[in-house]
């Protein structure tokens, strides 16, 4: 929930609390969280049936790539939050700069992920190598797909920030909500695939 200066009825103690962005996007985030949770539960069940294979396969992944990707996305989320704040303060040029940096982080994430995949495939670790790698490529690919959709959201945010006549703070916050969801999902995927022993 976000605090803002009271402008009308419903103000409590001079402040009103509201959900940032469209509530519709929050409904989507919850539904996506539900779908991904079901993937994670299936992963955990399959992992429990053959823990040795999953542990041995996990050791073939590069933690450096996982950590780098996580840091890049966390940085992008922080920049996105700063963008929303700048936009609320009507510092649209600053906000625009932050969105561009978020997009650069997104591109860096995608580039790192593609490079990591090509390296692993070069080592003979394919989608059908074993069950762990099936999950690894599946979860990271579906997540990367969300990152690609996130570039559309960033494009919408750029359009909003550059259009004085049709500018909407709500839409900028909606785009930010989507991007934070992408980050949030990655943190769980990172923990499950790279960290959990």
């Amino acid at each position, binding site marked *: 929930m976000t605090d803002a200066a009271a402008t009308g009825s419903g103000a409590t103690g001079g402040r009103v609390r509201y959900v940032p962005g*469209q*509530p*519709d*996007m929050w*409904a*989507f985030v919850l*539904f*996506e969280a539900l*779908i991904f949770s*079901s*993937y994670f539960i*299936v992963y955990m069940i*399959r992992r429990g049936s053959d823990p040795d294979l999953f542990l041995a396969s996990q050791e073939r992944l590069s933690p450096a790539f996982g950590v780098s990707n996580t840091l890049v996305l966390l940085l992008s989320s922080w920049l996105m939050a700063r963008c929303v704040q700048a936009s609320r303060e009507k510092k649209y040029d600053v906000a625009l700069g932050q969105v561009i940096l978020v997009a650069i982080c997104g591109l860096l994430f995608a580039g790192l992920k593609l490079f990591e995949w090509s390296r692993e495939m070069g080592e003979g670790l394919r*989608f*059908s190598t074993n*069950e762990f790698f*099936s999950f690894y490529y*599946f979860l990271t*690919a*579906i997540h990367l*797909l*969300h990152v690609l*959709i996130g570039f559309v959201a960033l494009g919408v945010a750029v359009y909003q920030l550059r259009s004085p006549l049709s500018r909407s703070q709500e839409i900028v916050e909606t785009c930010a909500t989507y991007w934070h969801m992408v980050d949030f999902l990655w943190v769980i995927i990172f923990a499950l695939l790279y960290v959990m022993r």
Partner: protein
Amino acid sequence: MSVSLEQGIPFRPSGPFGRIAWHWRHDRKAELWMSWYAMVFFYNLFGVVFVGLTHVMPPPQPYWDDAEVAQWFRHYHSGLLVGFGIIFLISGLVAACNALIAYSMRRMSVSRAFAYSYIAIYSLSATPGMLLTAIVLSVGAMRPERDPRLIHWLYDMAFMCFVGTMGVFLIGTLVWLIAILIDRNKVFPKWFGYLNICNMITEFVVAPAWIFKAGVFSWNGTIAFWIDTAVFVVYTIAFIVLLRKMIEREDFGDGPLPGNGASLFLAPGLQEGSDQ
């Protein structure tokens, strides 16, 4: 029968037959309601046939050998022929579904190209996603004495058509998604636009079914089939309910639709027929 002086339309009679006749003659939304009921009828019968009669859903095992596949065809011989006979009879109802969804896009503040693209794509997608599956499995069931290797070939083809050709649906879903998100007439709530993203992603999730013959990514696996199907069922129920609400709110104008489209429940004062 008394006559409404304001519109020159007789008041709606209270008896069921009188009401039907009244709607048939005077309800401007009669065609929309017929399309909606055709859609509900189609999806219900589709479920009964594919789950209860033909046992195509949930799909049987992809790793079965020739003998097991031939046994499956023998076991469900009558169900396959009767069930797909029904599908061949009602498959034309997809036109009503596509027309109503295209109508929703025509009611939006977006280009007509969206509605035309949707109709074209979804008319095409019915062929691999439903008809080809029905034809191939009917062919398999028609002569159970056929060479088991040929029967197995038909089995693979049918289930890969049914589960693995989702890409054609992807672009159709994308068209509807964009139309809803850029629409200013509030025909559908934005959350349904975002729900289209979930449905679109299921088309990617099913792709590993082309690689695996067992496990969670196979054509009857937990991820490629069950979770995808759960998302599709939620999506389908949502759009059927929202299309109903759209018809209730329809004022045949070209501006924003009256009433609140965000809730899945009826808005007060917008019950069926209340606009008459």
